[in-house]
């Protein structure tokens, strides 16, 4: 592969929310900016660009990761999912999103997309995850509004629903 010049844009091909995307980005472009400014997916929020707040968390190859600490060029060939992928239909919330709404897991909502992406990955990897796992995943996020208690309750409720679905007759 040739050296990619700093002054020009270069192709980045990857899967985004199940669709193949062929975008273009300068080497220095962050994944968070590619998603928001080039592809128009503004659900991924940007708080600190230091990796500390977690607002920009997306899933890369199924794992929650900071979009602000990932260069767009690093996701070539990867599978990226953003908060826009959680509900298949704009009028319907995913079970995790619905639980957030029921349990008042958000106030201003700035931190919410990132938190949803971390918890969605957790619930997929460990269906019915418990309080400890949920808290561990939340430790990578800063929420300035809710004090976390309702977020934990929402995640536990979603996990509980998931457990019931897995074992319908249990």
């Amino acid at each position, binding site marked *: 592969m040739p050296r990619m010049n*700093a002054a020009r844009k270069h192709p980045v091909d990857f899967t985004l929310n199940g669709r193949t995307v062929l975008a273009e980005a300068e080497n220095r472009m*962050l994944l968070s900016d590619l998603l928001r400014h080039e592809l128009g997916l503004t659900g991924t929020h940007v708080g600190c660009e230091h*990796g500390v707040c977690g607002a920009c968390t997306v899933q890369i190859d199924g794992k929650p990761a900071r979009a602000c600490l990932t260069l767009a060029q690093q996701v070539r060939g990867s599978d990226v999912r953003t908060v826009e992928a959680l509900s298949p239909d704009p009028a319907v919330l995913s079970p995790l999103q619905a639980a957030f709404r029921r349990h008042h897991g958000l106030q201003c909502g700035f931190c919410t997309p990132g938190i949803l992406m971390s918890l969605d990955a957790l619930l997929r990897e460990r269906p019915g995850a418990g309080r400890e796992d949920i808290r561990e995943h939340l430790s*990578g996020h800063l929420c300035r509004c809710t004090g976390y208690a309702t977020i934990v309750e929402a995640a536990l409720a979603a996990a509980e629903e998931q457990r019931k679905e897995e074992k319908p007759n249990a």
Partner: protein
Amino acid sequence: MKPASFDFLCPETLEEALAVLAEGGGEARVIAGGQSLVPMLNMRLARPALLVDIMRLEVLHRIETSGDEIVVGAGVRQAELEAWPSLLRDLPLLAAAFPWLGHVQTRARGTVCGSIAHADPSAELPLSLLTLGGAVSLRSRKQKRRVKANDFFIGMMATDLAEGEMIEAVHFPKARPGSGYAFREVGRRHGDFAIVACAAVADDSGLRLGIAGVDDRPRVFPLPALNDDQFDDAINDIAWSLNARDDIHASARYRRELVRSLGRETLKEASRCRA
């Protein structure tokens, strides 16, 4: 904040990577998981002319047992080693340290070797490598060399890595039956860098206490078997021998106090695990 411009290269072979690193002089830099480098680029604390992405080099993607060592290649992400099925048996100290190493979200991308190369004085992996008496394999176009952790970390984010050289793998000594290991840390938020972290090993040759977050690099101290009074004196001497400083996170005095209390707890726990 946004990074300044740089050229980017994603080599297909290790030889190609080493060739560009050699040609680039100090201006070319390896990027692995980016979890420390990208924040530095974002804040423009680093402005390399060229980034060499090593994450697609399959040869660097390996966790292997070789004799009495576990060899972790430069392409291995922290979460992969954390999930390695033999971790608890072969590297119990790392199993205890991982939950403290950043967050699930940063471990998913950050590599084991990247953390060692970054050499933050309060980082968990450099501390663990040093306390276990491990080593680093370095590779440049011209030569391959192996450096003991003790000689590799030379100061605040400073290592023995030369221009044009990269870490190819790190070597962690495998746990031996009858040895005990413990890890403790105090930080401001779970997953943030340590104010003080302690790692301890108890084995046939005695006790070893590793300390991070106090001096400009992790430090390790061997200790003989001691009675309680002697033990208090010894750990107090250690606390004072470190070059503790005040910063926005904690005072030097608080750090010394943490060395005494965490040091005692980790050494006790390692000794207990031995029995």
